[in-house]
Each structure stands twice: as structure tokens, then as C-alpha cells.
């Protein structure tokens, strides 16, 4: 668990981060969103003390981070950044082994861990272990970057725009992989992004920052239905909001008894995709995996309902 208490960073007289408090529970993903200069990256970097806070404190599992030597703290916290930051003069295997090495693991343990991680990230160890970073594709480099961050089994992983250098097609896949991995490992994750779409896709909680201040901290649904102010609302984009809301609920919630023709869709499909599917196929009913259907009518009603709640809130 990460507790951030009244954290402030000043450079001279400019306040980059102003009195931010938030809490990320064990095994949760928190996304820090904001425009550039909002202080989100500085906030992230204060967690592993790459930036020293001017005021306030960070507790990692109840332990005050300022009481741990910075380099020892950082070896406990995974850190992955945009453009991966792999050491270009070291092989993939050596890169991943960096922190275990610093922690004096035995060679056997390290080798085993490197192979395990490469497997986990769908990179064949025999093929990739001894390659140099520049011989990999952008997506592979990014995965190795995350593998290096996870090498010493940190309880906390910090990510700064980890997918920023990837092209949109791979990015969606990388996000899905990260979600799956996080579920499997149960790592607490704090991720910085400027992309609200990414924050909604990944975050259990989203922190919206502007000019160093934390404007809102809540679940994606909170943000979509009850944006704290105009800035948060503009960041979400009011026109697309009903669609975003649709993307938060799965068809399983709207399943009805019935029969329909055509290919079935997964019960985990979100409402937005189901709506798109209906319009695309030109049908009123979609069959679900494992029986049952979802109707276009139900999708419409649900969408309207969401739009109205939103209207009430405003």
C-alpha cells in the first residue's frame, strides 16, 4: 500500500506539486493523469525519491520512505519509463538482472528469474537473453523495460508513460498485457499518463492533476459521472462521455433469455463494443457466449440512462 500525505515540491518559489494526498491500496492500479506540467511525473518521482519532497511524506506499507536510503528504496520499487531506458551496452538478460544483481542474488537465482520473466513477457529466453536492446523492436524493448522493473519482485511498480513511445496499435495490446500481468502478480501499480483513455482502461482509481494540485481522485465511473470541475470534465471530453460510460459495463449485466443467430460475443464485452457490433451487423439482438442474448434496445436504454444520470449530476 502507498500512502501519500500532503506531498509538496517547490523549486525556488514555484510549486510543482501542492499538498497532494492519496492512497493506493495493495494490488490496485492508480493512474495519474494531467497535461504536461501538471506535476504528475514529479509526484510519481517523489514516491521513489528521485525527487525529494519539500513537505509531506510517503508511506510504503506503512513505512516512511524518507527513512530508507534512496538507492535501497529504489531497489524495492520497480520503475519503468517512457522509451524504456534500457542500458544500451548491456544485453537483455543483463538489463533484467540489474536489480537482482544489486541485491546480491546468486547467479543461479538470477538466471532463473531472467528466464521466468522473459517467458512471462512472451519473449523466448534462448532467443532474446543475449541480444542487445537496439536489436529489439519498440514493443519488445518496452516489455524488457517492464521486466527489468519487475525483476526483484517489487510490491510496488511505478510507470512513467510506459507506452508513450509505442504506436497506437501495439499500445492497446501492451495495455491489455499489463492488466493481465498485474492481476497475476498482484503488484501495486502507479502509472503516469497524459492519455485519459489509457487511464480509464488501466486505472482502478484515477488521480487528475492540474498545476500541481490534485483535482479529483476516484474510480473511472466517479470521474465520468461526477467530474469534480470543468477541467476534469474537459479532460474526459463531454461528447464522448456516454460512450466511455458504456465501456465501463459489460454485457453480462444486461443479459436476457433468448435466442439469436450469428457469432456469439464474450460476456466480458463492454457495452460500447456490443453497440458497435449491433450497428455493424445490422441486427437487433446479439447472442452471448454460454447462452442468452443482449438486445439493442437494452443497450440503448442503458446508454440513455447513463446520459441522464450525467445530466442530473451537472
Amino acid at each position, binding site marked *: 500500500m502507498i500512502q501519500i500525505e500532503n506531498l509538496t515540491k517547490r523549486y525556488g518559489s514555484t510549486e510543482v506539486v501542492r499538498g497532494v494526498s492519496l492512497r493506493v491500496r495493495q494490488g490496485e492500479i492508480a493512474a495519474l493523469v494531467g497535461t504536461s506540467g501538471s506535476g504528475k511525473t514529479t509526484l510519481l518521482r517523489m514516491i521513489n525519491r528521485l525527487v525529494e519532497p519539500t513537505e509531506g511524506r510517503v508511506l510504503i506499507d506503512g513505512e516512511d520512505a524518507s527513512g530508507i536510503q534512496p538507492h535501497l*528504496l529504489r531497489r524495492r520499487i520497480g520503475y519503468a519509463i517512457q*522509451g524504456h*531506458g534500457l542500458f544500451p*551496452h548491456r544485453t537483455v538478460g543483463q538489463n533484467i538482472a540489474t536489480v537482482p544483481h*544489486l541485491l546480491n542474488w546468486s547467479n543461479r537465482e538470477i538466471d532463473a528469474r531472467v528466464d521466468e520473466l522473459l517467458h512471462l513477457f512472451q519473449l523466448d529466453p534462448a532467443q532474446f537473453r543475449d541480444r542487445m536492446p537496439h536489436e529489439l523492436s519498440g514493443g519488445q524493448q518496452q516489455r524488457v523495460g517492464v521486466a527489468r522493473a519487475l525483476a526483484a519482485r517489487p510490491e510496488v511498480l511505478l510507470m512513467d508513460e510506459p507506452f508513450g513511445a509505442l504506436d497506437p496499435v501495439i499500445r492497446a495490446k501492451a495495455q491489455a498485457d499489463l492488466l493481465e500481468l498485474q492481476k497475476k502478480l498482484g503488484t501495486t501499480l502507479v502509472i503516469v499518463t497524459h492519455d485519459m483513455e489509457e487511464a480509464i482502461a488501466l486505472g482502478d482509481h484515477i488521480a487528475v492533476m492540474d498545476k500541481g494540485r490534485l483535482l479529483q481522485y476516484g474510480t473511472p465511473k466517479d470521474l465520468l459521472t461526477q467530474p469534480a470541475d470543468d477541467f476534469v470534465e474537459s479532460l474526459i471530453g463531454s461528447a464522448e462521455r456516454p460512450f466511455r460510460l458504456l465501456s465501463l459495463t459489460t454485457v453480462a449485466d444486461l443479459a436476457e433469455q433468448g435466442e439469436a443467430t450469428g457469432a456469439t460475443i464474450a460476456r466480458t464485452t463492454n457495452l460500447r463494443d456490443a453497440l458497435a457490433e449491433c450497428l455493424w451487423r445490422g441486427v437487433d439482438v446479439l447472442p452471448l457466449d454460454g447462452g442468452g442474448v443482449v438486445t439493442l434496445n437494452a443497450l440503448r436504454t442503458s446508454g440513455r440512462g447513463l446520459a441522464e444520470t450525467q445530466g442530473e449530476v451537472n
Partner: protein
Amino acid sequence: MVGRFLLIVLTLGLCTFVVRPEMFEAVFQPFTQNDAPAIYTQTSLLRLTLSHLALVACAVLASTIIAVALGILVTREFGREFLPLARTIASVGQTIPPVAVLALSVPMMGFGAAPTLLALFLYGLLPIFENTVTGLTNLPPNVIEAARGVGLIRRQRLWSVELPLAFPMILAGIRLSTVISLATATIGSTIAAPTLGEVIIAGLLTSNSAYVLQGGLVVGLIAIIIYEVFSSLEHSAARRLGFQMDA
């Protein structure tokens, strides 16, 4: 491949000539007049070559150690105050001709190998220092950020990340310094340093073109061979890092 083959042939040819110059007497005979000797024999060519190389090697080794150390110092936090000035000195210093440094070291140390060594060392510092600083200040920022984020302490960052990444640049500085030192050492024979310049100077003084030619050839070949070896080292070092380097 052709280049490497040529380099080996040149090296072998050079070695043969330096060890047994008399074998090539016929080649240099046409350049002499009035039955002057075709091959310089006052001092053996091998001895001159070895002392020339030893002089350059000592100077470059010393310059490298000091210049890299200084380059590291001025790029650390506590040395930052010195960085702008050190940069200016390095670039202005390289405007000063190496011959001038050589000439000015005579009054300090007299004649012979010592002042030559001093001049080579002093002048050799500049390109290595400049390249070390350039290498250490132009590191990819996300790699350095990652090195901190992963929990490397300063000393570990320097030795295992910053210096290896700056290595090709430092090597280029050492190459520059070596080439300049080879040339300056040649001129060092005018202040009585035992170098291959002696052969050229003897040729100039006695109007014996054969001497001038053989001295010039040996020095020129050595310089070219060393330059090529350094270049290929640099290339392989840079390729390892995945940098694109121009020929």
C-alpha cells in the same frame, strides 16, 4: 575486408622495413645524389621507431588517465562550477599550435625527450578531456533516469552506465590525441628527442631526399595504421551500443 587485408600488408611491410632497412636500399638509391648513403644508419631505424612509439604511448597514457579523471570531476555535482571554464580552456587550448607547446616546453625542461613528453602530455589532454566531457554530458537522459530509478548509487552509475556509454567518444578523443602526438613527437627531434623525425631532419640538413622519404614513409605509415586500428575499435564499440556512426 579488403581494408583489413591492406592494413595487415602495410603493417608487415613497415615492420620489415624498420627491422631490415638495408633490404630496401635499391628503392631509395635513385633519390640520393653524389653517392650519399641511401639508408639512414646513424641510429638504427628500429630503435628510433621504438622510442618514438614509447614516447607517444607514455604521453597518451598519462593524458588519458588525467584527462578522463578531470572530465569525470567536472561533470560531477561538486565539480560543475569548473565545467564552463574547463570547456573554454579545452577549446581555446586546441587553437594553440602543438609546435608552440613543444617550443615553449624547452625553456622549462631543456632539450631531449623530457620536454617532448611534457608537450605531448599537455596537448594530448585537450581532445581527450573535451571528448570525455561531451560523452558524459550527452548521455541519453532516459537511460540515466532509469539507472537512478533502479537504485544504482552514484559510483555504480558512473562505472557501469555513464563511462561505458561515453566510451566510444572517449576513444575518439584518444585517437585524436595519439595522431597529434605522433606528429608532434616527429618535430620533437628538433629538440633532440630520439624520434623518427631525426631521419627527416638529417635528410633536410644534408639534402638527402632518400632520408627524408624513408623517415616520412615510416612515420606516415605508423600514423595511418594506428588511426585505422583506433577507428575500427571505435566502430565496434559504437556498434555494440547500437549507435549509428558516420565513416
